[in-house]
């Protein structure tokens, strides 16, 4: 997994609440058996005016000029700004894959859906939840100033504005550790293999009907 330490980049606004994972990456692209290549179809239904199909070359598709990511000022944005309940709905990890493949490393929103929030950390993306009033002020700032950039510092748990103002955010210590170091969670869990075996043995004795029935 890609490490996340400090990311400095252009902020792009996605000004709506309840952005669901169907919107982030529509179902037809979930037929892929790959983990990469979803970037061109991120927000497909909003980004283009035609209906996208998997495997299609997106470079000549008609763009929706009203959609923020299509505007020159937000080109190469690496931080996405949105509102409450971002990432709700389907558990598809294709959503963070698409965000990451497009170039986003951080999503800032007033709140996140549980599964999406969890999935981000597995893919080198940092979800940052901030108070709705702070989100409002960031939407105003990004709207007012072309090329508005933020610095997100995971180690110090700070979002730093261009004028140097710092906004603190919360993040789970374990997830932070994994993201800072780009750690493979499976490898870490396997360090507890003895504890898992021990648990499993007593559980099998207690609940034998849960074992060896599907074969």
């Amino acid at each position, binding site marked *: 997994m890609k490490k996340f330490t400090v990311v400095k980049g252009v902020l792009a606004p996605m000004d*709506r*609440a*309840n952005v*669901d994972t*169907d*919107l982030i990456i*529509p*179902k*037809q692209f*979930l*037929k*892929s*058996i*790959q*983990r990469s290549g979803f970037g061109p179809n991120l927000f497909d*239904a909003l980004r283009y005016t035609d*209906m996208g199909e*998997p*495997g299609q070359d997106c470079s000549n598709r008609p763009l929706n000029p009203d959609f923020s990511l299509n505007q020159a000022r937000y080109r190469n944005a690496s931080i996405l700004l949105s*509102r*409450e*309940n971002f990432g*709700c*709905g*389907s*558990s*598809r*990890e294709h959503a*963070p894959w698409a965000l990451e493949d497009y170039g986003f490393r951080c999503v800032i929103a007033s*709140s996140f*859906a*549980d*599964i999406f929030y*969890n*999935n981000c950390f*597995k*893919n080198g993306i940092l979800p940052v939840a901030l108070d709705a009033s702070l989100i409002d002020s960031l939407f105003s700032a990004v709207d007012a100033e072309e090329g508005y950039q933020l610095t997100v510092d995971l180690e110090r748990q700070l979002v730093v504005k261009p004028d140097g103002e710092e906004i603190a955010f919360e993040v*789970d*210590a*374990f997830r932070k550790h994994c993201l800072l170091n780009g750690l493979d*969670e*499976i490898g870490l*869990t*396997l360090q*507890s*293999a003895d*504890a*898992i075996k021990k*648990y*499993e043995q007593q*559980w099998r004795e207690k*609940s*034998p*009907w*849960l*074992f*060896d*029935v*599907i*074969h």
Partner: protein
Amino acid sequence: MAAQTLYDKLWQSHLVEQREDGTALIYIDRHLIHEVTSPQAFEGLRLAGRTPWRKDANLAVPDHNVPTERQERLGGVAGIADPISRLQVQTLDDNCSDFDIVEFQINDPRQGIVHVVGPEQGATLPGMTVVCGDSHTSTHGALGSLAHGIGTSEVEHVLVTQCLLQRKMKNMMVRIDGELQNGVTAKDVVLAVIGEIGTAGGTGYAIEFGGQVIRDMSIEGRMTVCNMSIEAGARMGMVAVDQTTLDYVKGRTYAPSGEQWNAAETVWRTLHSDDDAQFDSTVVLEGAQIKPQVTWGTSPEMVLPVDGEIPTPADIENSSQKEATERALVYMGLEGGSKVSDIRPDKVFIGSCTNSRIEDLRSAAKVVRGKHIAASIKEALVVPGSGEIKRQAESEGLDKIFTAAGFLWREPGCSMCLAMNADKLLEGEHCASTSNRNFEGRQGFGGRTHLVSPAMAAAAAVAGHFVDVRDWNYEGE
């Protein structure tokens, strides 16, 4: 010991390792697998040279991509017309074969929607932890299990370690008191709950559904309720084990029998919240006040009773809500202030992991018996949740009732719930759907979904617009 909730008990019994930073290693009893969220996980195993921890904990079934049209279906995997879907289903077969995991393949008589198949086969049981790379895994909580959706990285993690790294959620009790009116179903209950607490109301919580209405509900109904916990923001929903649960589980293929049944039953009977257990949040609804529900917008919380009027943005103070309402009205092609009963569906879909079980099909068939779909309905689909359900319905003659009424009777799969196969809405079409999500484009690019119960979908198919099924004139009654 302090009084515990059902969730506390399930968590405690599966705790492998509690860590100082608040995370915990939780053991997973059953891992369900389908074709969409697993290929990248199996690929991860191959790349790292890893193998599954416990093969017999896994059960796979293709459901999202499978064609429901009979002729196409008869061709098996090779017969799937869409080459990208075909490859995905084939990849599941290959992965299960390579890693020696039991799979009900596309035309296995036991095949069906993963969340229908698990309980039906007794592969998901009370007291288990159940996960699947699918957010509607919450369905299995209806049996008194701890069940929730995971992402593909976690699918890989479970395959390799039989565990997940988690933080404990908070406890929420959603209690539905009293009794439901005739014609009001589990679907209406859960839509009413989402209308009450919102799509983020359950974020951070494990929900337990209780109260007399839930106690009186069949397991099928409880599955419908738990299925949509995720639409209320909660990864998991669950119901305490009672006699109804035990009666449902007994005799199923993978359920224990004989002495093991007796031992299991003793354990399962303890799977309820203690009388004095504390919940971090409690929501109470009065069953008798719940009316048949219809969603009008693009989020499950945009829901109204069938006799309701669609909101007018000018009346909404909160700017974010106002904007969301305006956007939803434009997308749905509806006017604020108009009546729900004036919405005219173009298509009707009865199916999905929310509402494709036998009692759903019976309830819809009862409504359409002796009647015919309205001339304005372009297509009405009934997609049973599994091969078992399809055969059961056919033995009861339900298929004949549906086809006589102008419905298409299909092969089992997820179908038009998320339109990954050929079953989809065209741009601008309205659909009365028994599925779980009314997001933009969910059932097809530009499609407009209205979530309802099977009886309400059936009634709308006949009437050509939404009607109150409480007033329905049943044939032969």
